[in-house]
């Protein structure tokens, strides 16, 4: 006979209003989760159509205009409506207050506003898509975007502009929360790395996104008012747009990867039964990545017409920014040395992350080599590079965190066999999809091409085959995670044997997070011969 279900944040109040007007960070996290899943689906459908199209060298699925709108929407949706929000708004929102021993974020109502701004921006962009889309590429280069592009540019850009405010307010909320709402005894150096990573991400969100806002505003001014700030006819400079755009968009990629790195820093110590190797280094590397990440934007412009000296400087700085990432990889691997390694699904995703992020990162170093970049920029080599980091890295990290914290969030356990199978399937599907693209890139296949020379076909076919496997790997969690909610065994407070504060409260947590605010007495990731030592005094 079941004991009566205790009250938790999921069942504390019922009704649609209690969800749509909630200020509980945990419920807001689930609202975001619904949103990003929806947008991942849309972006994924676009990717499916792209890979189907590219099976043959000729156009198959539609006109060139249709294809151009397809890859543009894929980029816009995946970057701004999936990757950038993904981990911070779901796991960040849910876990940060729990990890620091707080009852909520600093500004709960602002948190809800962030979600509404995200949804509003997303709906505006979806409207642009349904009305016919836009064909500029997600990078909106001038003067094509303002004076030559057909389609619903103004609507799409406005949607991104609105969603940008969601990013800014979320980042602001996290920064203030981490500074001011830590539980007694939770000093900065006792914070889990996921909190530090989210903090570093939030610094970028807050400082870089306004520059995007201004850039998009100027783009809109051009398009709506038919004036030319970046237009050569008036003496304006098309390259100024690129500088302003990439000044945001490069730090943006660190928004996308830092939270995943934070997840891996949680998963690896837990499933190694050992403290994280080099905690201080990992922490400061996160900050270093955020800081140096603001200085490398020019590496997107090595063939754009920048000066030689600018190119040399940006290349050097791009090599520099790789150092803290490399240090993190070494630290994760060293954590496993002399540990008690377990192979649950979160850890399998973490293994995948480390391997694929390393490959992606090293190809980044190849791109930072100026003479190589001249050849492979604007080709599939770059496409492969950023998908290794974004998908092999960030999305794997997302799935690692999803599987790690699912018991805490839902109070249920998912079937381990299916989870591990999905992880391995996704790993193989991913590599088959994107490794051939490195070869295509060096061969010279440019990106954003619907038609291509026939000798490139074999690699495209392999890539599309891989995409079909990857799709299955991504679809499976939808099924077994949903099953777990209905039929899965109930989870205990700490099913994995981890050490953070979030594991001291029930699964799912009560609305107020902790019956009593904990007092922290030790650093994170403390294990005694594989046995976890929880951070707080019992209370």
């Amino acid at each position: 006979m079941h004991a009566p279900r205790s009250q938790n944040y999921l069942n504390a109040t019922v009704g649609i209003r209690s969800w749509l007007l909630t200020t509980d960070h945990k419920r807001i996290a689930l609202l975001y989760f619904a949103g990003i899943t929806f947008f991942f689906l849309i972006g994924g459908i676009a990717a499916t159509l792209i890979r189907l199209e590219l099976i043959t060298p000729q156009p198959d699925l539609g006109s060139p205009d249709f294809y151009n709108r397809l890859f543009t929407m894929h980029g816009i949706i995946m970057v701004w409506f999936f990757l950038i929000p993904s981990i911070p708004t779901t796991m960040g929102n849910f876990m940060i207050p729990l990890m620091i021993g707080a009852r909520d974020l600093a500004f709960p109502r602002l948190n809800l506003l962030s979600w509404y701004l995200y949804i509003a921006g997303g709906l505006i962009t979806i409207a642009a898509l349904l009305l016919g889309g836009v064909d500029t590429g997600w990078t909106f280069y001038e003067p094509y975007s303002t004076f030559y592009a057909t389609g619903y540019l103004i609507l799409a850009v406005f949607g991104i502009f609105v969603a940008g405010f969601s990013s800014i307010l979320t980042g602001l909320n996290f920064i203030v929360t981490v500074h001011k709402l830590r539980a007694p005894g939770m000093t900065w150096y006792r914070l889990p790395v996921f909190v530090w990573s989210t903090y570093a991400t939030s610094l970028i969100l807050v400082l870089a996104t306004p520059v995007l806002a201004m850039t998009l505003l100027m783009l809109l001014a051009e398009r709506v008012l038919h004036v030319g700030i970046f237009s050569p006819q008036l003496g304006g400079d098309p390259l100024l747009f690129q500088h302003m755009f990439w000044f945001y968009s490069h730090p943006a990629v660190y928004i996308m990867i830092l939270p995943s790195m934070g997840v891996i820093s949680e998963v690896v110590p837990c499933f190694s039964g050992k403290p994280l190797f080099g905690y201080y280094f990992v922490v400061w590397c996160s900050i270093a990545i955020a800081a140096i990440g603001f200085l490398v934007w020019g590496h997107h412009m090595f063939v754009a017409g920048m000066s030689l000296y600018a190119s040399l400087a940006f290349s050097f700085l791009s090599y520099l920014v790789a150092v803290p990432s490399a240090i993190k990889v070494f630290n994760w691997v060293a954590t496993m040395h002399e540990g008690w390694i377990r192979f649950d699904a979160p850890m399998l995703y973490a293994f995948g992350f480390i391997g694929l992020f390393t490959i992606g990162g090293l190809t980044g170093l190849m791109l930072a080599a100026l003479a190589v970049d001249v050849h492979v920029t604007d080709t599939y080599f770059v496409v492969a590079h950023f998908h290794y980091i974004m998908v092999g890295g960030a999305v794997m990290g997302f799935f690692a965190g999803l599987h790690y914290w699912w018991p805490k969030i839902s109070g249920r356990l998912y079937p381990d066999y299916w989870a591990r199978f999905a992880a391995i399937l996704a790993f193989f599907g991913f590599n088959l999809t994107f490794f051939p693209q490195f070869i295509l890139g060096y061969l010279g296949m440019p990106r954003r091409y619907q038609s291509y020379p026939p000798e490139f076909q074999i690699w495209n076919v392999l890539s599309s085959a891989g995409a079909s496997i990857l799709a299955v790997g991504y679809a499976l969690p939808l099924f077994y995670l949903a099953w777990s909610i209905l039929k899965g065994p109930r989870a205990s407070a700490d099913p994995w044997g981890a050490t953070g504060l979030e594991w001291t409260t029930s699964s799912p947590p009560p609305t107020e997070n902790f019956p009593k605010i904990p007092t922290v007495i030790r650093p994170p990731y403390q294990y005694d011969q594989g046995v976890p030592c929880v951070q707080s005094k019992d209370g």
Partner: protein
Amino acid sequence: MHGFPWWPPTASAYATRVNFLFSSLLIIAALTVGLVIFLLAFFATKYRHGSNAVRHQPTKKTWRWEVGWTTASLLIFVGLAVWGGELYVHLYNPPPNAMQIFIVGKQWMWKAQHPGGQREIDELHVPVDEDVRLVMASQDVIHSFFVPALRIKQDVVPGRYETMWFRADKVGRYHLFCAEYCGTDHAHMGGWIYVMSPRDFADWLQAQGGQQTLAAQGERLFRSYGCSGCHEPGGTVRAPSLEGVFGGPVPLSDGSVVTADEHYIRDSILNPQAQVAAGYQPVMPTFAGQISEDDLAKLVAYIESIGPKRSGAR
């Protein structure tokens, strides 16, 4: 049946050096990834939960390792930055007296104009073992001139000239692609580079039919657009003579000195108020919107032909 193409053709000494740099980076990357994957697999096996490997207390002295691999990473990465940069600088130093070809990119074709006046569309014929310098303009949006076999690529930006040079050393036919998204037919904006033996190239030039050289056509335009009215002796308005100007220094009214290269000539025609020659009134009218890129190329070629030498600098 195309089989598995692994590597693009290599059609210049520079491309060979890029191959070497890329391959070296590839090997370094493969070794690093190999090391990481090996360690992951090794640790996962030896230290799996339930194995009886020896596990000491986790060391507190992690900083030795940290300093070690941080220093190693820094040194390797900085070394690679220098190497990659050094080869890139090569692209910015075209040799003097390279054959100069004007390229205009527009949606969705590439047009080339040889010094002898020969014109091509979506094709470029060049002689083997000769320095070729491309002066490129766009008529509308940003395009990018990409020849994988030569490992070179340069964005072509409207409103300015971009230059690029190469020396092909292998006869053959090589892909030309547009590599910067430019609209509907971006994927079709390409063609072929034909590297020909000197004799074949001479035959090809001959076969294009008689036309005036680019510079001669430019001289005709110099008159028909009215430039000679001011810039030649006896003109009504006092304007600098352009004889011997190209490639040399030009003192400006604000005290600075610029080099009279193709960028300067183009800007002087399209935006004369921006840089006024010292000692002259800013009375030159702008020809922006009146002269096509094709004609601009001819004018530049003409002014270059009456100058002492080509600057050769990028």
